[in-house]
């Protein structure tokens, strides 16, 4: 009879919770993070369900509807060749979200192994790899992405590769730092003492313990990648016309800013909302995964 209230009290105080339960509890308490997550999920749903949700074909032109302001038929107005802006904003979510997902996945796939090897082996390998990382970090992110996209050729796929390559050193540096901070922990020493091979120590014992900061960085990097994709498309180096992307829509819209300001308003607002939401969620996730908080 007395045990039940005692258990509840313990759970309320956060005692006896598993780490993921504690993180989830902190995350759920952060309203801004939940708002961010909600908006990100909304955009993901929009991108997946674009064929069902889009009111018109995003590529269909209509010379009778050139630069029409928002109306009951075209909620976000129409563009310079009569295409529905709402339909293009909905379909444009696909380019932005895939840029976020693919670029960050590429950066993780290249940066994490580099950081693991560098941090674990140390010495000459670490010194050489980190100087390579320094060299990549010395070139401003967007300038490196522009240069890579320029030499690879303008397309959404190449823009994603360029962004992913540009973000790789950030993940390599972060992973290395995390490996250095855990590699002398008792449990790693113990794993070594019982004769585990190096690859097993790195993959089974170190990697799972450094996932939280990588997860936070991946969320924030996705926000950066979305802005970068929009920037490259704005410059004409990302998604190519007539396929819709928020950046290329803004590129066209800037030429019609006095005649059709709605062309610039909605794609820009979509980028801003999605990036803000990812940053809010990333900040919340960082607090939730920080073991010093609770």
């Amino acid at each position, binding site marked *: 009879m007395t045990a039940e209230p005692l258990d509840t009290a313990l759970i309320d105080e956060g005692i006896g919770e598993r780490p993921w339960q504690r993180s989830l509890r902190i995350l759920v308490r952060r309203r801004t993070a939940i708002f961010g997550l909600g908006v990100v999920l909304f955009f993901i749903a929009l991108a997946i369900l674009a064929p069902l949700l889009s009111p018109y074909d995003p590529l269909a032109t209509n010379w009778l509807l050139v630069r029409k302001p928002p109306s009951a038929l075209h909620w976000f107005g129409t563009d310079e060749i009569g295409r529905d802006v709402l339909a293009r904003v909905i379909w444009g979510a696909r380019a932005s979200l895939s840029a976020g997902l693919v670029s960050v996945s590429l950066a993780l796939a290249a940066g994490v192994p580099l950081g693991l090897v560098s941090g674990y082996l140390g010495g000459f390998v670490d010194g050489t790899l980190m*100087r390579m990382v320094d*060299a990549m970090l010395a*070139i401003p992110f967007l300038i490196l992405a522009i240069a890579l996209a320029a*030499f690879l050729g303008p397309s959404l796929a190449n823009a994603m590769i360029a962004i992913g390559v540009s973000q790789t050193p950030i993940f390599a540096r972060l992973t290395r730092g995390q490996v250095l901070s855990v590699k002398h922990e008792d449990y790693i020493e113990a794993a070594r003492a019982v004769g585990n091979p190096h690859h097993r120590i790195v993959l089974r014992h170190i990697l799972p313990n450094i996932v939280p900061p990588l997860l936070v960085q991946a969320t924030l990097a996705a926000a950066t990648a979305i802005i970068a994709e929009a*920037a490259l498309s*704005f*410059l004409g180096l990302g998604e190519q016309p007539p396929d819709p992307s928020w950046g290329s829509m803004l590129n066209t819209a800037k030429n019609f800013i006095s005649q059709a300001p709605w062309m610039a*308003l909605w794609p820009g607002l979509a980028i801003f909302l999605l990036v803000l939401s990812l940053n809010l969620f990333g900040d919340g996730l960082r607090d939730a995964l920080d073991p010093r908080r609770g």
Partner: protein
Amino acid sequence: MTAFLVRRIALIFPTLFFVSVLIFGLQQLLPGDPAVTMAGEEQDPAVIAYLRQKYHLDEPLPVRYALWVEGVVQGDLGESIRIKRPVKDLIIEKLPVTGELAGLAMLVAIAIGVPAGILAAVKHDTAIDYGATMVALWGISMPNFWLGIMLILLFSVTLGWLPASGFVPPDESLKQNLLTLVMPAFVLGNAIAAVMMRHTRSAMLQVLSADYVRTARAKGLSQTSVVLRHALRNALIPVVTLGALEFGGLLSGAVLTEQVFTIPGFGKLIVDAVFNRDYAVVQGVVLCTAFAYIMLNLVADIAYVLINPRLSA
């Protein structure tokens, strides 16, 4: 101190080596024969032959790299295919424009970011702190090219207060020069201000809980005096050095800002070069940017040690 300086300066060389390999390697990404690709749409055989000879494309890769580095060390960054002028001259010509824009943007960033950071730290955990933190997040999340377009809509198209685009050199008309740069500088400074605010806030929070600040308070000094004379002077050390590292963000932002406001600077040079397949210009701009960043990083590191008495002793 001397050992630190020697070690820090020695670290530059391997970094510069890898930067040079990376930038030289960009050329290898070109599909097919680089000379044919670089020659543009006209595919003039004379131009192709000239490029093949100029870039030693018949030589093995390591030889080409060594020859390229030799040229770069002597200040030869190649020649623009489109404008037929040395890349070095083009960069020197555009640098003052971007320099002025970046300088003004930094002023905007400091004017907004530092006071906001101080206020957020002094009013820690209050509505003002949360408000300032949200505004910073807002600044980081805002695509600056969109902000630029929206400002043009408001201040140029609707109100007619400021010119929408273009650039007037300061020696021609200082007033017009500043009028053309007000919006671009604000757009560029906005994102840096958000980062500055975060740095200042966290540095101030750390300093405000230090013993010497408590002592200053115990002596009966006013809040303003404690914050501005005692706390801020120490908090600004990391802010100044971290501010120097925002250079990269400033240059990345300048590429887009110059594009939106049609400012003929460094950023516009690289974008135009990309579209004209003027690869020597792209390589030259990237190389100069990386070199400047590495040097600024070095200066920031040395300044940090020199300013901080605990490290310089």
